[in-house]
């Protein structure tokens, strides 16, 4: 009978606290969103599964010695996983549309206002006593507005590892929700006439320009903001491998086996930060609210900047491509295209929106560098 008692006392059922039970449901919810609603399944499926594994009472997978904790220490604490993912994203990115119309970089800059406005909001609400975030935490939360998963995870792992789970979940969830979040804002902030603006066709971009671009990006970062060098350096490296054409086997592996392997373990490792006692706090709710605000403000400021540019520029831009500046590649660009087609079914904005879209990746990495520079 003793054995029976030991066994029973060691079951998950016996040891479970309500928080763990709730987190098992959260894990199932994330898996449901990933599979049925197709919310960024590449990340949310592993994160959701990791959340369940981390909250199995008595299994201790996400604490010292547990396998998920090991994945976290090896891959995220060290910075390696988000940087490798960023290298892979670089190898998957085509800067052609950006090079054809470089001024869309400005749209990618404007949309980063979501990051800083959210930082302000988080600090302000803490000053008012609603939440209790310090400046580092506020900055890590703001980066959600960058709409870039690996950037969010990288910054959070440095500035606020205790919030990493909630930040990652918010980041990927809202990226998946871009088709729901953005269109109402886009329709509200633009006139029908603006939405019908036809943009001049993008010129052909030469191979040489595409090869030189990541090197320029790297050098500018090196000279002006070394704190952004890990993120943008790996990003530029991935892109150079792809565009150079001389290391196709490395580029192919980076875009496939390597990024896939790292994605699996990154997801599980993020899941290890969804343990009940850490995750079920008022902070998490604050992060979810502020993250949504960040997306909305980023979208708005991108749209407004596009309208501002039209005042000074001869070649008008359709302001709908401004919202793509938050990144969330390529979802936000597709949303620009879709909303544009509602106003003019012959006006395809997709390629035009890809410029601000990838500019947004650079923009939020720069914002991340600033945060790390001043706060780490």
């Amino acid at each position, binding site marked *: 009978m003793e054995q029976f008692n030991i066994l029973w006392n060691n079951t998950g059922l016996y040891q479970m606290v309500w928080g763990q039970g709730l987190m098992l449901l959260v894990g199932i919810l994330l898996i449901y969103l990933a599979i049925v609603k197709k919310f960024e399944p590449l990340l949310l499926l592993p994160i959701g599964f990791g959340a369940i594994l981390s909250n199995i009472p008595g299994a201790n997978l996400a604490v010292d010695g547990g396998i998920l904790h090991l994945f976290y220490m090896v891959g995220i604490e060290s910075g390696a996983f988000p940087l490798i993912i960023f290298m892979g994203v670089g190898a998957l990115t085509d800067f052609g549309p*950006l*090079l054809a119309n*470089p*001024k869309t*970089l*400005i749209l*990618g*800059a*404007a949309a*980063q*206002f979501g*990051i*800083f*406005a959210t*930082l*302000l909001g988080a*600090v*302000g609400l*803490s*000053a008012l006593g609603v939440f209790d975030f*310090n*400046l580092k935490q*506020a*900055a890590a939360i703001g980066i959600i507005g960058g709409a870039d998963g690996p950037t969010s995870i990288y910054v959070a792992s440095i500035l606020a590892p205790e919030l990493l789970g909630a930040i990652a979940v918010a980041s990927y969830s809202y990226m998946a929700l871009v088709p729901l979040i953005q269109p109402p804002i886009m329709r509200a902030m633009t006139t029908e006439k603006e939405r019908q603006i036809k943009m001049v066709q993008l010129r052909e*971009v*030469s*191979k*040489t*320009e595409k*090869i*030189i*671009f990541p090197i*320029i*990006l790297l050098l*500018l970062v090196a000279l*002006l*903001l070394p704190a952004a060098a890990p993120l943008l350096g790996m990003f530029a490296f991935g892109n150079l491998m792809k565009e*150079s*054409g*001389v290391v*196709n086997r490395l580029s*192919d592996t980076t*875009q*496939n086996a390597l990024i896939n392997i790292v994605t699996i373990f990154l997801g599980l490792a993020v899941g290890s930060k969804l343990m009940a006692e850490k995750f079920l706090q008022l902070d998490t709710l604050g992060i979810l609210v502020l993250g949504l605000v960040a997306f909305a403000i980023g979208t708005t400021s991108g749209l407004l900047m596009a309208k501002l540019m039209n005042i000074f520029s001869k070649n008008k831009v359709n302001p709908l491509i401004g919202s793509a500046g938050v990144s969330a590649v390529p979802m936000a660009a597709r949303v620009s295209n879709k909303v544009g087609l509602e106003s003019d079914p012959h006006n395809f904005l997709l390629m035009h929106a890809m410029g601000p879209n990838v*500019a947004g990746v*650079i*923009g939020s990495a*720069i*914002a991340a560098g*600033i*945060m790390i520079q*001043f*706060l780490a």
Partner: protein
Amino acid sequence: MDNNLLAEAINLTLFGMGFVFVFLTLMVLVTTVMSLLVKRFQPNLNLATTSNIEFSSDIDEKTEAIIKKAIKMHTKT
């Protein structure tokens, strides 16, 4: 104390957004100049396109296209 924090946050926002704009504007300039230079001095760089792909010509183009799609389907999904 909290006011101090808020002041820091405002400072960070001003400098941060400012820097983001400076950096990306600089990129617009440098990129534009780069593109102009590339177009001007159309380089005779012997840039690899598909040179390390050995694919004998006895396969007609349509078949090749089919296979490429198949491989893409296989690797990208």
